[in-house]
């Protein structure tokens, strides 16, 4: 496998764009990433677009606006993990030696309110909404490990605090613990401010082989690991780990092995906090703490800005918003800029290794449909930043 580098990043402010087409704002993210990479007249070998609601050949519709045509363009659907999946596909194309320069875009224009279930998801037919799915996981964790509703709510407080510093976040204001707990219940114990809003957004990455990265003087951030996994059936009564947690655990273990790093080497992370409990479980599944200790990590401020391992410095899904396919790419934009020292007021000092985790898509019996974990590292040698 060849090394793959991230040589350009772009993102549009996340929010609501009722009067714009998906193409209108997605092309802005692409334009920023292309400019950031300093590509000049160089053409992409391939482009991958992650989205769930974009409709047929949405990627081609976006690139047509920019006269980027003719190369293979792939449209990838993997629910909340669509963006991470797209980066994995781009990484495969370059790591394998097939291509040298690829564009990876995550984008989404969301419907308002609850995401409508698919007819085949029989549990949804019985009332298991997506917030309810996470609420059931939260209740289980409370019963087994004593997680408190205050610890859950504190995740929202922490992430909104970071989001208040991010000009690209949908909601840029801090919230108090009392406000989180007093907001209306969605699926108990999760309240409104513990659930990601419905948000439109787009983010883009330019990735390249070492040869092309060197030609452009952009050998700054390397993709040290790129892993995509799907769920395996787990019996929640007899198996030690539930499907959703097992999936993230397996993806993370494979990523650490590929990168030759462990959880203690990670300086900054973006994890899947579509709901507050998702972040607590991610800490445990990614090895940031022992199982059952996720609530304590928040209590002690370990994962806040200024802590030992800041998590969701972008504001996370809770503050950024969660345009399904855009999220995985937006996470990597945030982390790349952290490693480049370009994260502004959210900058984590001396960040050299970063981890991005997304997972999503309900599949009855086998839990979450897809999880992607990426580990990024700095290459000190020829960094231009």
């Amino acid at each position, binding site marked *: 496998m060849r090394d793959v580098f991230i040589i350009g990043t772009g993102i549009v402010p996340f929010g609501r764009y009722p009067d714009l087409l998906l193409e209108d704002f997605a092309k802005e993210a692409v334009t920023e990433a292309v400019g950031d990479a300093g590509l000049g007249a160089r053409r992409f070998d391939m482009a991958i677009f992650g989205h769930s609601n974009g409709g047929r050949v949405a990627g081609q519709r976006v690139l047509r606006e920019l006269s980027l045509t003719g190369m293979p363009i792939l449209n990838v659907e993997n629910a909340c993990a669509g963006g991470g999946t797209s980066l994995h596909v781009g990484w495969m194309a370059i790591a394998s030696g097939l291509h040298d320069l690829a564009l990876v875009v995550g984008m989404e224009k969301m419907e308002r*309110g*609850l995401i*409508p279930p698919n*007819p*085949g998801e*029989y*549990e949804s*037919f*019985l*009332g*298991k*909404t997506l*917030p*309810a799915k996470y*609420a*059931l*996981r*939260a*209740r*289980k964790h409370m*019963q087994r490990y004593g997680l408190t509703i205050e610890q859950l709510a504190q995740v929202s407080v922490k992430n909104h605090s970071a989001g208040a510093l991010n000009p690209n976040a949908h909601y840029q204001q801090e919230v108090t613990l009392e406000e989180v707990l007093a907001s*209306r*219940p*969605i*699926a*108990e*114990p999760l309240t409104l401010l513990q659930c990601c809003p419905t948000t439109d957004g787009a983010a883009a990455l330019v990735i390249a082989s070492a040869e092309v990265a060197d030609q452009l003087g952009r050998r700054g951030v390397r993709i040290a690991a790129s892993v995509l996994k799907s769920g395996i*059936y787990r*019996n*929640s*009564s*007899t198996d030690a780990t539930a499907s959703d947690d097992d999936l993230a655990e397996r993806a993370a273990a494979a990523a650490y092995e590929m990168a030759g790093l462990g959880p203690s080497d990670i300086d900054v992370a973006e994890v899947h906090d579509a709901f507050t409990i998702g972040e607590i479980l991610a800490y445990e599944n990614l090895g940031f703490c022992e199982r059952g200790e996720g609530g304590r990590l928040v209590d002690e401020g370990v994962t806040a800005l200024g802590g030992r391992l800041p998590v969701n410095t972008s504001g996370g899904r809770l503050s950024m918003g969660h345009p399904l396919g855009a999220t995985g790419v937006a996470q990597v934009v945030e982390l790349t800029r952290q490693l480049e020292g370009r994260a502004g007021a959210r900058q984590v000092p001396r960040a050299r290794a970063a981890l991005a985790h997304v997972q999503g898509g309900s599949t009855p*019996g*086998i839990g979450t449909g897809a999880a992607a974990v990426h580990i990024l590292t700095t290459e000190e040698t020829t960094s231009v930043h």
Partner: protein
Amino acid sequence: MTEVAPRIGKWTVTTDGDVILSGTNCPQCGETVFPAHTICVRCGSPDTHEALLRGPAKLRSFTIVHQLPSGFPSPLVIGYGEFEGRTQVLAPIVDVTRNQLIEGRPLALTVGVTRTGENGEEFVTYQFTPIEPWESDDSLSARASSQETGHA
């Protein structure tokens, strides 16, 4: 008109009024699942047999859902019931009080209207009901067909 909801698995009601779920068991790995799988979802064996699940089930995780698609009573209690350590099944929990929502609590399998469709059609599904009598002053949910809409 009352219709049976699609794709949520098969159940029967005995002459005694007992509700029985029809899942599958895999003789190769021993796993029991519901709804039925022709190919074992755990080990891939194509040799699964029918396995019947009878109550009471034990309450495992649960949530009180407040934001719901149209057609559901709100709030709606849903939860996982565990059948003799074999498998867990998700279903609405009806005629339940907040103080009955305790892990390990026995649940009877029942049948009732879970939701209504766009044209007012009623979807009947399997449900759970706590075996202890419920206390009316703390009602969380009622059957969708009932006039009582519940209050949290």
